């Protein structure tokens, strides 16, 4: 077999086998630690991809503080090492694993390992390491902030100092801040001193017992070789005070306490401004209030105006907060929009803020001056306010700034319009002009009616056609003396129509009064009818058949005459 031919093939098989090979290993840096101490869990594996550190489920009592990742590539394959920092919070025996690790080469099994956690070693105070805790005052008032000073005196090497958190009941404590470190000689011995400062604010009366426990890393002494190369081991121990520090917390005196006192202590000043001062009803005024000073400012807010019959108020908005490093002094500024509800409101009432002055041991109430304003315009109907003012709770520590936001949506829609619809058009002109046209028309009718009442001739003239038709109906029932009835009709009609005296109708008066609208033939016919009536008085009536013709003829004549007279 020619080796030269198979060499590339062998190299390929070797590399492929290497790629398929995956080794996994898990171990602890220490098999036993004490509570609050840390241990490294080291996980090593080979993989061809770019895996992320796997997440390992841990038993209760152990928690992961973080991890670091390292990778080394040798001969074409990569080995990953992940170091998990674990911390134990309770003593006991912990079983870590077993795990199944998924790699690109398949699942790899990891055997379980055991970690023993012993109770924390408590280091009794001795001449090499002791702690002191001092407060700026042994008696304080509720919400009065005092300073605590913690000092570590050591003659041994220590590393990190960590406070073990414990429940805080009845007080608030700030973070410890290192303020000083150096050496001090006590009774002829040199100590390294590390001083820390924190601020304590009691929230209720009673006695506070402070016994903080610290986790201190004590560095073990090693050989000079180890020290040279930084290979120094350390041990975590708990350090605490020989006896707790007691602080008595009192309530502020009730004597002389203002009604609006809400628990603030210190020394404050209050300033305010308002603009604009001349407004219409419903216009907003911006009220700006500044509270500055030293004391429980962290929990305090400048006072705002409350809802009243004169003002609608919006929630105040904290626009500026400047606190100094001591956490006690500074200033806070709020802005509040207030709206006068009616004309004649002449001032914005003064705002008050009460506090207990810890220096003079007396209550003080500071206030802003009232601001004169001019409110003009029409009064508006008062609507129920839905905008809450700041609720200045008597418990200032629980006071929360309500913040500032948009006023809510309108819940009731109003009819929408287009631009064209809002322009005054013919509809508006028509609907506005129609009543005046109606008025003018009815006025004309009324005037005509009034005129007819005043002129009886005119009234008779107007009613003549109507009466004529009424009388013509009588003509149908006149059996014997038909020309007498015709004469009566003619007489009444013509006297009314031509304004002649009733009962004295003669041909000459009628001919004189007849208007030119009546043609000659019709005049002649009228004369004939009048003569026939005269003759009939003496000659008597005709037969029944003749009477019917006469009625018909007269009806035709008189209606035609009426039409011609009505022109």
């Amino acid at each position, binding site marked *: 077999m020619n080796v030269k031919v198979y060499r590339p093939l062998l190299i390929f098989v070797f590399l492929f086998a290497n790629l398929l090979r995956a080794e996994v290993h898990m171990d602890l840096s220490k098999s036993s630690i004490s509570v609050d101490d840390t241990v490294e869990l080291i996980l090593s594996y080979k993989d061809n991809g770019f895996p992320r550190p796997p997440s390992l489920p841990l038993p209760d009592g152990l928690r992961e503080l973080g991890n670091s990742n390292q990778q080394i590539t040798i001969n074409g394959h990569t080995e990953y090492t992940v170091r998990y920092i674990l911390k134990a919070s309770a003593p006991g025996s912990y079983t870590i694993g077993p795990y199944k690790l998924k790699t690109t080469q398949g699942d790899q099994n990891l055997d379980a390992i055991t970690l023993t956690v012993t109770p924390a070693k408590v280091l009794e105070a001795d001449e090499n390491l002791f702690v002191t805790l001092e407060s700026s005052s042994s008696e304080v008032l509720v919400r009065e902030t005092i300073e605590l000073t913690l000092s570590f005196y050591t003659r041994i090497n220590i590393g990190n100092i960590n406070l073990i958190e414990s429940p805080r009941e009845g007080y608030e404590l700030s973070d410890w801040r290192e303020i000083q470190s150096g050496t001090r000689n006590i009774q002829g011995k040199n100590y390294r001193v590390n001083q820390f400062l924190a601020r304590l604010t009691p929230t209720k009366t009673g006695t506070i017992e402070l016994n903080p426990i610290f986790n201190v890393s004590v560095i073990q002494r090693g050989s000079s070789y180890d020290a040279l190369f930084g290979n120094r081991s350390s041990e975590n121990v708990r350090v605490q005070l020989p006896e707790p520090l007691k602080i008595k917390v009192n309530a502020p005196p009730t004597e002389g306490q203002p009604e609006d006192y809400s628990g603030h202590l210190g020394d404050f000043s209050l300033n305010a401004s308002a603009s604009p001062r001349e407004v219409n009803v419903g216009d907003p005024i911006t009220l700006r209030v500044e509270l500055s000073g030293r004391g429980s400012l962290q929990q305090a807010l400048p006072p705002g105006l409350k809802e009243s019959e004169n003002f609608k108020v919006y929630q105040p908005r904290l626009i500026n907060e400047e606190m100094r490093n001591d956490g006690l002094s500074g200033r806070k500024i709020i802005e509040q929009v207030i709206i006068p509800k009616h004309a004649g409101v002449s001032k914005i009432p003064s705002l008050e803020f009460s506090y207990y002055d810890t220096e003079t041991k007396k209550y003080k109430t500071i206030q802003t001056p009232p601001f004169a304003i001019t409110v003009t315009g029409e009064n508006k109907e008062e609507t129920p306010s839905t905008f809450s003012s700041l609720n200045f709770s008597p418990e200032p520590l629980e006071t929360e700034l309500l913040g500032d936001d948009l006023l809510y949506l309108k819940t009731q829609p109003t009819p929408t319009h287009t*631009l064209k619809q809002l322009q005054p058009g013919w509809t*508006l002109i028509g*609907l506005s002009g129609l009543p005046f046209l109606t008025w003018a028309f009815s006025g004309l009718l009324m005037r005509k009616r009034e005129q007819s009442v005043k002129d009886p001739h005119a009234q008779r003239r107007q009613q003549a056609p109507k009466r004529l038709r009424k009388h013509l109906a009588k003509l149908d029932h006149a059996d014997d003396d038909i020309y007498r009835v015709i004469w009566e009709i003619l007489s009444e009609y013509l006297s009314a129509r031509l304004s002649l005296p009733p009962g004295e109708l003669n041909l000459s008066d009628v001919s004189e009064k007849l208007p030119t609208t009546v043609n000659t033939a019709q005049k002649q016919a009228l004369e004939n009818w009048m003569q026939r009536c005269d003759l009939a008085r003496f000659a008597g009536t005709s037969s029944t058949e003749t009477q019917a013709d006469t009625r018909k003829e007269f009806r035709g004549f008189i209606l035609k005459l009426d039409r011609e007279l009505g022109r």
Partner: protein
Amino acid sequence: MKFLPFLFFTLFSFTLWADPAFEQGRSLYDQGEFEQALESYLQIPGFSANLDYNRANTLMRLGRTPEALAYYRRALWQKSSDPDIRANLQRASTQLEIILPPLPLYRRMAGFMTTKQWQWTLIISCWIFAGFGMLQYRIPQFKTAAAWVFPLAGLLILSSIAGTWATLPAHWTKEAIVMPEHVTARFEPLPDATEHFSIPQGTLVILGEKSRNWVRIRSGENQGWIPSDSVISLESL
């Protein structure tokens, strides 16, 4: 006289009117779906004070303050007596660090009623005036009351005409709000023309003549030309 209750009912029964999109917009707004809420409000045709106010609130939530300012301004023109509109308008203008000029005095005086309400008041006052004139023919006692009814009704008509005029949209259709952070107004409608003055975002300007994609604006006592797309007019909302 039977028509009067009907007219008053028509005039003051706006609350009975409702568009489903209005309620839908509010529901979406409550759920924090401001984009969809805005869409709902914008799909309602036309405008009204309350609708523009809600549109503006939604735009504020979306961080589109200059547009919101334009809607608030138009809502204020329609209902200048509404304290909510004024409060949120002030908040929007404070956010943009600008001061909007107040509405003219005549509009503020007529602000307790909308344009339509003023127009209906004019119609009703005309009917009262003429109706009283007609009734005095039939009821003699009305003739004695005419001495004070006619002057009062006449005054009402004159006030209604003034209110109708004061609330005409023509007063605000030329107003516009500057959209970009800063706009430079030039002496001529040309990109390389001499710069005249600069106006910040949210400033209220009055639109004048147009030339291609430029518009002449008036801001205070200054006049100049700016690109048309750098302002949003109240008319085009």
